[in-house]
């Protein structure tokens, strides 16, 4: 089957900074695809090229089988975009935001009104139809941006950090709606900083850093491959532990006051560690996407 998105050897340079450094990936129909990476990794730049906002320096983007450089207008008519910034129109009411936006897609006003009603219902905003955008909470604003990105009944939804800055309640509400959209067969590209979000929603994802793809796979496969099924965090490690790990060549991250061990499941290693080295504090847990992310992109701050 033809992929919804095909990206080949994509580059984006700003003066002498290379933001995207030759990435390639495809997204299949109905797939929920994640694009993860630290700040400045090139996620938003890539996303912006996907919805024809920024022209690539080099490389090919085909969406719905069409070249974005030539058929951008046709492509943009069939995608929905939820940008990172709040781009809602503060001069308009909640409902007007949807109806005016529908106009940009040339949706007739009667149809736009019906769709707006439907979307406000879906995102639990019906009660705030006539409210000013300024008076909405952060969670409502996000939901309204999401609602607006669906006004043209897109075949592909592009979400750039849809839950950043939301409280847990609002975030879960957004996830719930995204799950429903996913179940309806919508293809989605998502960037996020919440690994939990990516694990839960993405069928497949890539982790990018410095404009390049580091790994690609399903969340479960990536965890198995790069973190291990179980993880032990040991507080206050001593030299004996360090020597033991070195001798047995156990994959681990030494953070000084804490060591994180990545162990395959059911290994006697876990027992050995439990019996001999858990002097202060030991946490046994399953591997997560966050472990994968930090192992691959490092722990130093990105600013």
């Amino acid at each position, binding site marked *: 089957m033809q992929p919804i998105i095909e990206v080949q050897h994509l580059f984006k340079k700003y003066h002498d900074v290379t933001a995207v450094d030759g990435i390639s990936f495809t997204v299949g129909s109905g797939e929920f695809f994640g694009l993860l990476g630290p700040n400045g990794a090139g996620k938003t730049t890539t996303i*912006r090229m996907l919805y024809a906002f*920024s022209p690539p320096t080099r490389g090919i983007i085909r969406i719905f089988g069409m070249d974005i450089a030539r058929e951008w207008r046709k492509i943009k008519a069939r995608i929905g*975009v939820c940008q990172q910034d709040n*781009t809602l129109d503060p*001069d308009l009411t909640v409902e007007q935001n949807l109806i005016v936006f529908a*106009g*940009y897609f*040339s949706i007739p006003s009667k149809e736009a009104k019906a769709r707006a009603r439907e979307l406000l219902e879906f995102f639990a905003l019906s009660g705030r139809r006539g409210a000013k955008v300024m008076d909405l909470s952060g969670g409502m604003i996000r939901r309204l941006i999401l609602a607006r*990105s669906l006004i043209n009944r897109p075949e592909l939804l592009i979400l750039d950090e849809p839950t950043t800055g939301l409280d847990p309640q609002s975030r879960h509400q957004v996830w719930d709606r995204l799950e429903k959209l996913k179940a309806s067969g919508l293809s989605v590209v998502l960037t996020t900083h919440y690994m939990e979000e990516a694990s839960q929603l993405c069928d497949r994802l890539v982790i990018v850093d410095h404009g390049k793809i580091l790994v690609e796979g399903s969340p479960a496969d990536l965890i198995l491959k790069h973190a291990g099924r179980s993880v032990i965090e040991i507080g206050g490690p001593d030299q004996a532990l360090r020597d033991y790990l070195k001798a047995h060549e156990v994959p681990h991250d030494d953070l000084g006051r804490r060591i994180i061990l990545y162990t395959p499941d059911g290994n006697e290693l876990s027992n050995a560690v439990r019996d001999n080295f858990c002097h202060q504090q030991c946490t046994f847990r399953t591997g997560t996407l966050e472990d994968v992310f930090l192992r691959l992109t490092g722990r130093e701050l990105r600013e």
Partner: protein
Amino acid sequence: MIDTRAISWRFFKVWKRNLVTFQKIWKVNFITPLLEPLLFIAAFGLGFAGLVGTVRYGGAEFSYTAFIAPALLATAVMNNAFFETTYASFVRMYYQKTFDGMLATPLSIEEIIIAEIVWSATKAAAAAGIMLGVLSAFGYVRYPSGLLVIPLAFLGGAAFGAIGLFFTGVIPTIEMFNLPIFLFVTPMFLFSGTFFPVSNLPMWAKPLALAFPLYHLVELTRFSCLGRHETVPLLSVLYLVVFAVLFSALALLFMRRRLIK
């Protein structure tokens, strides 16, 4: 440089968006053009006219208030269009990120730019229409030629809207609009034959006034309202058309550079 495929009638949707927000505060939007001419007529007609008496313009004598009334129209056109595409467009572009949102739809940057300029021209023409009504009540407008003021206001509005949007494309912060206002708008307001005929200016200053788009718009509104003129009206129309087209292209160039990263 300019992609013609990116220009379609879709710009009208953006124009409509501005109309919707304009209608929300239409009462406020209508007060200024209603009251402004009254204010000027009161000040100049009651206070100043006694000092000046009559003005000789285009080979005829006019009362001072009749002389400045058409210039008030032209100035209002300039202010409405210029302030719309500077402060208001800058807020939409920079603070509200309205254009970023629009660029995620089938709209092109070209259509957004055209819509902003056409909208500013529309707003200017609407203000001119209201002012025309007020000035007609005082008998300062000859008909039917006075009706030409509305399309002329649209043309002049496009010229001032285009140069305003060009400034929006180049200016780093909103505070810095003070600069084009001080260097461009204020001198034009004073020296475009608004308060005294340009023929009264010394020889060396005349070409300067002739370069001002406001001078040409004042000439045209005077021609419509009083039936007299100093220059060839058609040349003034041509000047404004060229000015509008040139600065629309420059606005597009710099706005694209600013928005598309």
